[in-house]
């Protein structure tokens, strides 16, 4: 088994989860939970591939993906912020809406090949033994974008004025409101940004990591994993990055386990018994379910630092204001 290759490709696929979950972290830090990541990623993947395929310009594709994800998230923002609808219900419907839109608009794209994001190696860093080939050699540019994203977003949330407002809005919107922070605008903005990131994550699949459009198998549940990752990561970008790469590596590892006839000196059960493979393929999703169950108890949410106002609509003039 080629460990270098497993880690390398894990980081590459993990970048998708990283981008999507960092977007969701920003949204949730403002107090809005958007469960529609899967839908937004599909729309992003479709729009990115379609535009890149028709124009021949992959960067235009990325822009289209970002715009598509962002636009779709505005539907969620409108319904939950202005009309104060239940965020879970709205998020779930957004997944269905996004999936449907992507399948209809992506009709006829299956099997086509389009331009992809260029690859690059980082000089010097790629020479480091083991780490170089895993993390800094011959990756697509979005992987490096992911590396930058984590510290930048962490700094933004914790050390800047807009970040302070973001946290205040997610923790105690009434307090932020009395100090003149525009709650609705802030929540719209970060829901939109979260959508943009989800769209970008979708495109990262369709024009970079696994180029092409394979209807809803393109994203294949990674949006849900991203939502779970946010809880798993305690709303912290660093942990989200770790979790994202870990999931990526795990996915690749379960794939590689099915290849060889001999595994660790024994007959590989996954090679000879195809039914066992299903269990293997389940692992990332089982972990997701566990993370979601684990993180959903209200008491624990409080302890691990969930934004206090997460999931609660804000309206002026309610009791206590």
């Amino acid at each position, binding site marked *: 088994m080629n460990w270098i290759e497993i880690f390398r490709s894990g980081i590459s696929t993990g970048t998708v989860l990283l981008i999507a979950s960092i977007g969701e972290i920003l949204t949730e830090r403002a107090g809005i939970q958007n469960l529609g990541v899967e839908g937004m990623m599909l729309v992003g993947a479709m729009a990115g591939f379609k535009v890149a395929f028709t124009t021949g310009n992959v960067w235009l594709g990325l822009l289209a993906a970002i715009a598509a994800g962002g636009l779709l998230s505005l539907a969620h923002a409108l319904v939950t912020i202005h009309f104060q609808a239940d965020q879970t219900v709205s998020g779930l419907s957004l997944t269905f809406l996004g999936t449907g839109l992507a399948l209809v608009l992506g009709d006829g794209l299956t099997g086509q090949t389009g331009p992809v994001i260029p690859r690059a190696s980082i000089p010097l860093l790629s020479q480091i033994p083991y780490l170089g080939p895993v993390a800094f050699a011959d990756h697509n540019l979005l992987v490096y974008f992911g590396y930058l994203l984590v510290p930048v977003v962490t700094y933004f949330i914790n*050390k*800047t*004025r*807009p*970040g*302070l*407002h973001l*946290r*205040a809005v997610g*923790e*105690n919107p*009434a*307090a*932020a*409101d*009395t*100090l*003149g*922070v*525009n709650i609705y605008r802030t929540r719209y903005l970060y829901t939109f940004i979260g959508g943009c990131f989800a769209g970008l994550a979708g495109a990262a699949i369709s024009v970079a990591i696994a180029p092409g459009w394979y209807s809803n198998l393109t994203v294949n549940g990674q949006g849900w994993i991203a939502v779970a990752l946010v809880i798993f990561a305690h709303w912290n970008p660093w942990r989200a990055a770790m979790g994202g790469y870990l999931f990526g590596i795990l996915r690749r590892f379960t794939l590689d386990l099915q290849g060889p006839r001999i595994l660790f000196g024994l007959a590989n059960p996954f090679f000879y018994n195809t039914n066992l493979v299903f269990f293997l393929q389940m692992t990332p999703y089982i972990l997701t379910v566990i993370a979601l169950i684990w993180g959903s108890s209200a*008491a624990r949410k*409080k*302890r691990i*630092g969930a934004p*206090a106002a997460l999931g609660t609509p804000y309206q*002026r*003039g309610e009791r*206590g*204001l």
Partner: protein
Amino acid sequence: MTLPEETITVPAVEMQDIVLRFPGVLANDHVNFTIYPGEIHALLGENGAGKSTLMNVLTGLYKPQSGEIRIHGKKVSFNSPRDAIAHGIGMVHQHFMLVENQTVTENVLIGLDTPRFTLNLKKYDQEISNLAEQFGIHIDPTAKIWQLSVGEQQRVEILKILYRGATILIMDEPTAVLAPQEADELIETLKEMAAQGKSIAFISHKLTEVQHVADKLTVLRRGRATAERMDLKDYTRESLASLMVGREVIFNLHKCEQTAGREVLRLEDVSALNNKNLPALRNVDLALHEGEILGIAGVAGNGQSELVEVITGLRPCAGRIWLEGKDIANKPPSFSIRQGLAHIPEDRIGVGSAPNLSLTSNIIMKRYDQQPVSQKWQLNYVAADSLADGLKTEYDIQAPNVHTHARKLSGGNLQKLILARELSSAPRMVVAMQPTRGLDVGAIESVQQLLLNQREQGCAILLVSEDLDELLSLSDRIAVMYEGQVVGVICSQDFDLTQIGLMMTGTLTQDLPENARVEETPTEGTPSSFDEVLDNLRNYEESAQAAQPGEIEPSSESAEPLEESPQPEPPTPPEEPPLNLTEKERVLRKVLGEKYKQGDEE
């Protein structure tokens, strides 16, 4: 303090003919409100009279349907709190508007234009520290809000306003959460700020306090002003009350002399954690007798709600709780209900009732499994309705009929509904938490009288209240809680407001003057030194684990009649000089808080 008015040409705030209508309610009906610089102006009224609403108009949260606001003579129109802040208006809300997991400095900086992008907290920590010193406020700008006491949190709120250079301060019932001494300090600070030329609007429904603080007075009743810019000295407490309520209010309750009977409830060494997994109750010992009201005094958040939850079976705890000879600690609420426990919870809507169910359904919640409501496996709604109808008349619940939804009732009527359910089952023991908070004066009277009637019938009553007047007039004994401990129990003949106030701020009974008649001072119950507190905390986890609820023999002594008033024991002499517990406990929380947060009780 008030400057003669002819020397001042322009009022700081002039609100004229303010009309604000919420769906179904006229919250402000042509109200005028004026403050001059250097003036403390009290805004008095009952809950729901429109005081906070009027002030929220001034802070830009609500936009009035009609009316004019002038600030320093200039007509203004506020679209958001930001506009009001720009005009030097700041408000300390009744429920603090603070972000719990951010530091003091971060809370002050929310919503400001500088720092532009990077926060650079160190620089602003210093700035805020300096500002605080200037007004004699002591606070650590790097502390997180959840680590601060309520009084300190209020200081952060004031700092927030001062940092914005406010000249007009609105204080919304600022003393409601403070101990008397803290309130006095606050009032001194306010007077100091007024002397420096700031205008202060002081919202309150406490008559005595208003007389103490304010220069001028405006009274609201049901959205209308019943007195505008009056001089306070022209009014007595009674005349103020009738302005507020619109009728004569009698400040007397019928409380008969009676002696306490045998013991009903006994708490032995009870400890519990709060929702943040920090110790909220520490080794509490209490006893409660037939026909006795035991008042629990204390600043909000010193373990009172945890105490109530522990007794009513809503919160796990370590230690023993004997009710009528049975250990009810860590038993389900239904168990204690069968032992005759009634609970009047603080949160009437969330805990005390099911707002979307009818009066009948709310009434039968505790007796759905008893005759005549229960008929084998189904409910007899005819019997239930007639039961509810009877109680509706008996307890004078104002509602169209018993099928009305509980959420449509006013606060007072909802409380009467809860009392009807809880008291009609002839309880042996009533636990009442803030039973009169937020009610109008009339409803308060009837709720208090109902509690006194229960006392006459030999019921033991635990009354938790933040209203000291209420405690003093109803209780036979008062136990004072501070930081999760009962720091002392005082009998009614020795009630002394100053002393209770001192105990509420953590002064241990040993440090009190000689006349403090302390009934129960278990030596291990009230740690006299910092080390002991620390030890107790360390032992806490072990004891919590060790105390597994099992089959426990009823205590033999608790069935025996006790002396009517136990002999006051001489307080243990302090071996060390009195310690500043507040400061040290805060350090403790910082140190142990993380540990407790990590400690997972899977």
